[in-house]
């Protein structure tokens, strides 16, 4: 879960990492006043949960309070990378002598924490790293290891700091490492770490991603207003609706409504449909052990999507059992009704009970099942996928 720049900087400040003395603004007037206080010049940075703000026009240098207000006015009206702009962080302009890069993340292949430092920072760090791997220094730590100051010095030396700057940067390196450890981060990044003309070091930008799954043990973040959130870029209405019901959902370009089980077959089913010449209309993940209500809601999303011409359903019951799946489908059929052809396969844990529930419901209300072609383990899933493609084409 990504933090806003200003939130990340609050955490930095707590761990004694020097940050720019920015002002968080929600109106053009506030922006104007902030710039006024910075001797009439400043840099406006939209606070959105996305990187690449500079290239997307979300970071603007201004030379006067009037310009600041005008630019802020525009920014507050716009969306940047699909995100509405609700807050602008106004920073003073820095006299930059040099830009460095410093980051901490996880090396999943080696199960280590990695500290990355480079004497070259800024927007082009990735390309720089590709071209000059020897100039990007990495040091690994075990998960239960603290960082000793001499290790920070070692990294600082590799980043080409010398003399009294070495002491400054060491404390920043340890601070960033401590931030990373303290909040269960997946990423903590200072890019650029700026050395100013008068010899100070300051985090000009700040990026932190925390591990959503560890948020439960960080009430101190909740107290700062940092709670589980979604990175809401340009979402469709349906995506928003799905999210409100806690369903991971993504609109795609095709015609086949995908109603798969877990994320694994969600991804693979999408491949299969493409492979057989069709195009999915969505990606969706039921999550582990979904309730019948949730499953019914998933079907509503598909049935009400005008782009969907046919529905591909699949359930291989594991932690999510077939009886619950059947209950969800039946609930949907009764409460909402199915207006599109659907082909589905159901097998796995409790499949017998799932089939029994279907049979029972079908006996009572055969009309509800008219549009459904239901299969069991005897039919390979590929055949279901192929049939879904056929159905989506027949409809046209």
């Amino acid at each position, binding site marked *: 879960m990504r933090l806003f720049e200003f939130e990340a900087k609050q955490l930095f400040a707590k761990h004694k990492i020097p940050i720019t003395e920015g002002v968080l603004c929600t109106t053009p007037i506030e922006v104007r006043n902030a710039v006024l206080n910075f001797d009439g010049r400043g840099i406006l940075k939209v606070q959105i949960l996305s990187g690449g703000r500079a290239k997307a026009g979300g970071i603007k240098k201004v030379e006067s309070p009037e310009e600041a207000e005008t630019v802020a006015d525009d920014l507050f009206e716009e969306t940047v990378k699909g995100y509405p702009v609700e807050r602008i962080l106004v920073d003073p302009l820095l006299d930059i002598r040099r830009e460095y890069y410093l980051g901490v993340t996880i090396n999943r292949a080696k199960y280590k924490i990695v500290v990355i430092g480079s004497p070259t920072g800024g927007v082009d760090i990735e390309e720089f790293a590709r071209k000059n791997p020897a100039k990007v220094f990495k040091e690994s730590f075990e998960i239960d290891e603290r960082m000793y100051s001499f290790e920070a010095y070692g990294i600082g030396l590799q980043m080409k700091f010398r003399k009294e700057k070495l002491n400054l940067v060491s404390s920043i390196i340890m601070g960033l490492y401590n931030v990373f*450890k303290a909040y269960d981060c997946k990423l903590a990044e200072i890019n650029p770490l700026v050395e100013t003309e008068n010899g100070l070091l300051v985090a000009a930008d700040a990026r932190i991603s925390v591990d959503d799954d560890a948020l439960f043990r960080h009430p101190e973040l909740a107290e700062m207003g940092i709670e589980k959130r979604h990175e809401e870029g340009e979402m469709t209405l349906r995506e928003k609706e799905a999210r409100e019901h806690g369903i991971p959902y993504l609109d795609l370009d095709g015609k086949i409504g995908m109603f798969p089980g877990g994320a*694994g077959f969600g991804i693979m089913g999408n491949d299969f449909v493409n492979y057989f010449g069709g195009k999915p209309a969505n990606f969706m993940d039921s999550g582990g052990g979904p309730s019948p209500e949730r499953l019914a809601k998933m079907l509503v999303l598909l049935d009400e999507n005008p782009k969907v011409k046919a529905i591909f359903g699949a359930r291989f019951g594991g932690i999510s059992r077939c009886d619950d799946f059947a209950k969800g489908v039946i609930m949907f059929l009764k409460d909402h009704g199915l207006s599109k052809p659907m082909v589905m396969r159901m097998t796995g844990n409790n499949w017998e009970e799932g089939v029994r529930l279907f049979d029972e419901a079908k006996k009572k209300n055969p009309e509800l099942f008219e549009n459904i072609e239901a299969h069991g383990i005897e039919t390979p899933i590929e055949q279901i996928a192929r049939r879904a493609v056929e159905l989506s084409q027949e409809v046209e």
Partner: protein
Amino acid sequence: MAILVDKDSRILVQGMTGTAGQFHTKRMLEYGTKIVSGTSPGKGGEVVESIPVFDTVESAIDNTGADTSVIFLPAAFVKEAAIESIWAGIKHVVVVPEHIPIFDMMEIRKEAKRYGSTVLGGNTPGIITPGQANIGIMPDIAFKPGKIGTVSRSGSITYYVADTLTRSGYGETTCVGLGGDPVLGSTFDDILRMFEKDDETEAVVMCGEIGGVYEEIAKDTIKRMKKPVICIIGGIYAPPGKRMGHAGAIVEGSMGTAKSKLKALEDAGAHAARTFLDIPKILEDLNIEPVEKPK
């Protein structure tokens, strides 16, 4: 033979007195899995499905000789439970719950390496050696004893692949769920090495998907393996996932897309399947015979 677990495995259920623990204990027992004990601190002395519950893993081992554990506990308690097992001498730990904090799983992995244990998950459907032991939550219906090993990051893909192998007459030696969490107790690499040494396994199906690096880092092992590896990777048609900042790009380089995975594995000599039904075809091409007539 088989890898990791077989009919002699003595299973401990951590969190046995919880709803999921009770439910799956029953299921696993019905399959014939040798569940010998459970743990639930403060509930030592209770009984679930006639199986004794202990306060600590140590006492469970002392009293019942458990050697393999499966965890059914909320994510927040998994780290302690897994490390308790590892320290007490449990050789295989199966972490069924999902959303295990990354730092926790890294700590578990470190302790597992230190004591020579294997951890599967988080978010694994478990592990099954068909006809012998079904540990976790996998549906029995898909599996049958045979000669192919499988290893997968996704529960449902495990089932589909096993279903395909079963129906085509090959059956499975052992099916291993690595788990769906971002950081896992074991990697493809770890499991492939085990299959390579297993007498009964004639080929391995490895099911990966977009994201992470576990597929790519298996490539050197695949190169060295004598047994054929068939791979199927989900997400070829999916939009690319997001990078974790510059740091992620610097650490993981070009890894992480379905195509990068497919390329790494094919370059290493793995045979790529596009659909499940490709798998028996590839096995046939490799002159591996089914153990029984396909259905």
